[in-house]
């Protein structure tokens, strides 16, 4: 029996196990790509529309979010499309790959399934190889669907080579990070640790590309996530990034195989250390239990959001200095007008980022609330409920920590942007004032709370539907991240709470909207609470 024996059977088994999640990812991603491409000529079809968006895309704020691209000569619809979509699609595809790769390897091992499989006549490396093949097939299929979708959309300026370059470029970027997940799954000794490690690398790659894009786009070559930006599919097609991704993926795979062949089942290089023999005085109830279990994740999220805020803040002095792009303006309008204009630009930039930041800050809170149900199905709540603890007590312990986490993460992230941003300015008065900052906070908090309250409602009343909270958040995120660039109709933006509040501090804070959103959040939580008190707990 070779080391790879029965890999084929395991690949089939993997696809059977993951068929719904793979199908959902592929359908959503391929449909997103194809439908945007399909609509794109209608959005940016005329030279006037293209020239208007071209300047917007060159502004540092947008570069920070979508990447730096260079345009030459007459810009086509397809080039604008590539600029707006490549990095964004790559991000989603990386998230998909990290989820799939850790799920297929370390998570299975944690559950003891790998042990069961390996007890049969299955090669020692077969499970890892099967996961690799699964990732290659999923990414390859997705890449082909992207290319076919782009062919069908037939945007002005699109070329066959460019279409395939986009498909394969995204596929290889996804695969690269998927393989990274396979490697961290070999290095860490349990699934959450493997996921955390992989996301840390992903986060660093993102920050590296963002900072280099804004300042020295040439250096973006050093971030694997930056390679998709270098494809330049429709103006100067380059296959080097595809090759680089494949090469690095191959190297990482070798490392993963090496680590896999040298370790015991269930073990990893980063091992779980022994801990306290007795509980600390602080650990005494459901709320402190969640904190004890999740503190690393909670702290990591808050710190990560703050770092992102600070990173975005560093571009304030580039964005908020109109004279850099338009040196004659001061002579024409005078200093006061220039400062006023700088302030306006920064307000609009901060308002946009505040919405993105809010969507990111919701994630850890939503995870905590949905964890209430995950813990329930894993049997962890059984031990709690055998104690004198009411449903109300346990529910609000999870919900309370979730709300505090998301709220703090958001305030921290926005503060990171504003504090760092103001500090980087030569004229502090151009920056965001404290009042404007707090109005920005107040404008986004109700949105964060409504999203979290919806999760409470689902976990309380219809826990089977809890995945809907992620889809709804994704919809909200896409509608704000891409909404204005794709010129989505208003009703789409208003489907989720992200679109209910006007952009603050660019516009004034609307206290009426604020109030009814808070009331809505409270009502959703109350209904969820009543449902949770009444329903059966689901046990394994």
């Amino acid at each position: 029996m070779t080391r790879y024996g029965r890999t084929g059977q395991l690949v089939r088994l993997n696809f059977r196990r993951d068929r719904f999640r793979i199908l959902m990812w592929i359908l959503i991603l391929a449909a997103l790509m194809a439908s945007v491409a399909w609509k794109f000529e209608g959005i940016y079809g005329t030279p006037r529309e293209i020239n208007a968006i071209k300047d917007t895309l060159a502004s540092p704020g947008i570069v920070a979010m979508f990447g730096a691209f260079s345009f030459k000569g007459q810009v086509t619809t397809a080039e604008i499309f590539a600029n707006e979509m490549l990095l964004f699609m790559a991000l989603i595809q990386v998230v998909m790959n990290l989820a799939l790769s850790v799920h297929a390897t370390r998570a299975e091992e944690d559950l003891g399934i790998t042990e069961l499989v390996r007890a049969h006549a299955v090669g020692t490396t077969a499970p890892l190889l099967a996961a690799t093949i699964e990732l290659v097939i999923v990414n390859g299929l997705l890449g082909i669907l992207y290319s076919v979708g782009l062919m069908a959309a037939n945007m002005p300026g699109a070329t066959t080579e460019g279409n395939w370059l986009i498909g394969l470029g995204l596929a290889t970027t996804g695969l690269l990070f998927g393989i990274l997940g396979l490697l961290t799954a070999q290095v860490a000794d349990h699934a959450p640790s493997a996921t955390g490690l992989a996301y840390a690398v992903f986060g660093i790659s993102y920050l590296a590309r963002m900072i280099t894009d804004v300042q020295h786009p040439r250096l973006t070559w050093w971030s694997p996530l930056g390679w998709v930006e270098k494809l330049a599919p429709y103006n100067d097609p380059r296959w080097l990034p595809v090759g680089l991704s494949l090469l690095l993926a191959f190297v990482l795979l070798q490392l993963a195989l090496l680590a896999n062949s040298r370790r015991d089942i269930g073990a990893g290089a980063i091992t779980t250390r022994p801990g306290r023999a007795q509980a600390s005085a602080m650990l005494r109830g459901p709320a402190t239990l969640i904190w004890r279990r999740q503190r690393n994740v909670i702290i990591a999220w808050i710190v990560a959001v703050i770092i992102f805020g600070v990173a975005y803040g560093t571009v304030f002095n580039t964005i908020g200095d109109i004279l850099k792009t338009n040196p004659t303006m001061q002579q024409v309008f005078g200093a006061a007008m220039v400062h006023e204009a700088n302030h306006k630009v920064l307000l609009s930039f901060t308002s946009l980022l505040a919405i993105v930041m809010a969507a990111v800050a919701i994630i850890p809170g939503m995870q905590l609330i949905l964890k209430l149900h995950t813990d329930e199905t894993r049997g962890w709540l059984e031990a709690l409920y055998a104690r004198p603890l009411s449903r109300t007590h346990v529910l609000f312990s999870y919900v309370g920590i979730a709300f505090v986490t998301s709220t703090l993460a958001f305030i921290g992230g926005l503060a990171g942007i504003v504090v760092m941003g103001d500090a980087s300015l030569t004229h502090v008065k151009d920056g965001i004032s404290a009042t404007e900052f707090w109005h920005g906070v107040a404008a986004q908090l109700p949105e964060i709370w409504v999203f979290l309250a919806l999760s409470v409602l689902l976990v309380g009343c219809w826990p089977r539907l809890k995945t809907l909270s992620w889809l709804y958040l994704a919809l909200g995120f896409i509608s704000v991240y891409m909404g204005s660039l794709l010129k989505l109709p208003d009703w789409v933006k208003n489907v989720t709470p992200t679109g209910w509040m006007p952009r603050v501090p660019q516009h004034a804070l609307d206290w009426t909207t604020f109030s009814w959103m808070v009331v809505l959040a409270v009502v959703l939580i109350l209904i969820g609470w009543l449902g949770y008190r009444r329903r059966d707990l689901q046990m394994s």
Partner: protein
Amino acid sequence: MTDPVLQINHLQKKFGHFQALKDITFDVHSGEVFGFIGPNGAGKSTTIRVLLGLIRATGGTASIFGQNVWTDSVAIHQRLAYVPGDVYLWPNLTGGEIIDLLLKMNGTAHSAKTDDLIQQFGLDPTKKARTYSKGNRQKVALIAAFSQDADFYIFDEPTSGLDPLNERIFQDAVMALKQQGKAVLLSSHILSEVERMCDRIGIIREGQIIETGSLADMRHLTRTMVTVTLGDDFDVATLPGVHGVEAGHAPHEWQFSVEAEHLSTVMATLGQHHIAALQSTPPTLEDLFMHYYTGKE
């Protein structure tokens, strides 16, 4: 006589169209160990989850300490200890942390008794729960339960992962609880354990309690195994209420089983045929179990 600690009356539970519990009725009193036996999927764990207020009964009543198990669960759990069959522990906490946390949530604290139990069971409390085997996870739950000063203890197949030494420690601890006048509900598959420890037994099948009573009571319902060596050629197969007659190794030696109601007649008749040796074995719980589930001896 005092009121029973646990009282269940015609308890029912439906999951959708599936009737998991059809008719469960039994009591558990103070100072009593009640054995709850039945095959997998008969409804033991479902019954216990109703008792814990984790799921809501669709019919009948259940009360512990005279309080409703669903509406008053918090008050009840103040005086209750529970060890589940499959113990799931928070993976990134150590065993020691979990024991202390569980105790604190009942308003008690880590005591000398806890240390004692940790030592007896041979648990390493500094290991993260993720690294524990099934037996070690059970030990964590058992140590927390025995450290607690409760009035009613529920054990759901608590020894399925323990080695024989630890099983003995468990049994001794349960007998100590009984001495202190506590009530214990023990659901188990290990029939020898139930036979040794339980005062009364309830047998559940397909969501229904089909028999409750002491082991002695139940033995009357089934047959006694008899091995006898007689002094003459009497054919025992002619006796009333005798089954499975087999000739033994020696001449005039017979093995057979007798229905309880015919036992005295059979013995009287045998007495007239010069009994040289006689052995009688009461049915074990295993025999009873087989009797109820397969309808065979």
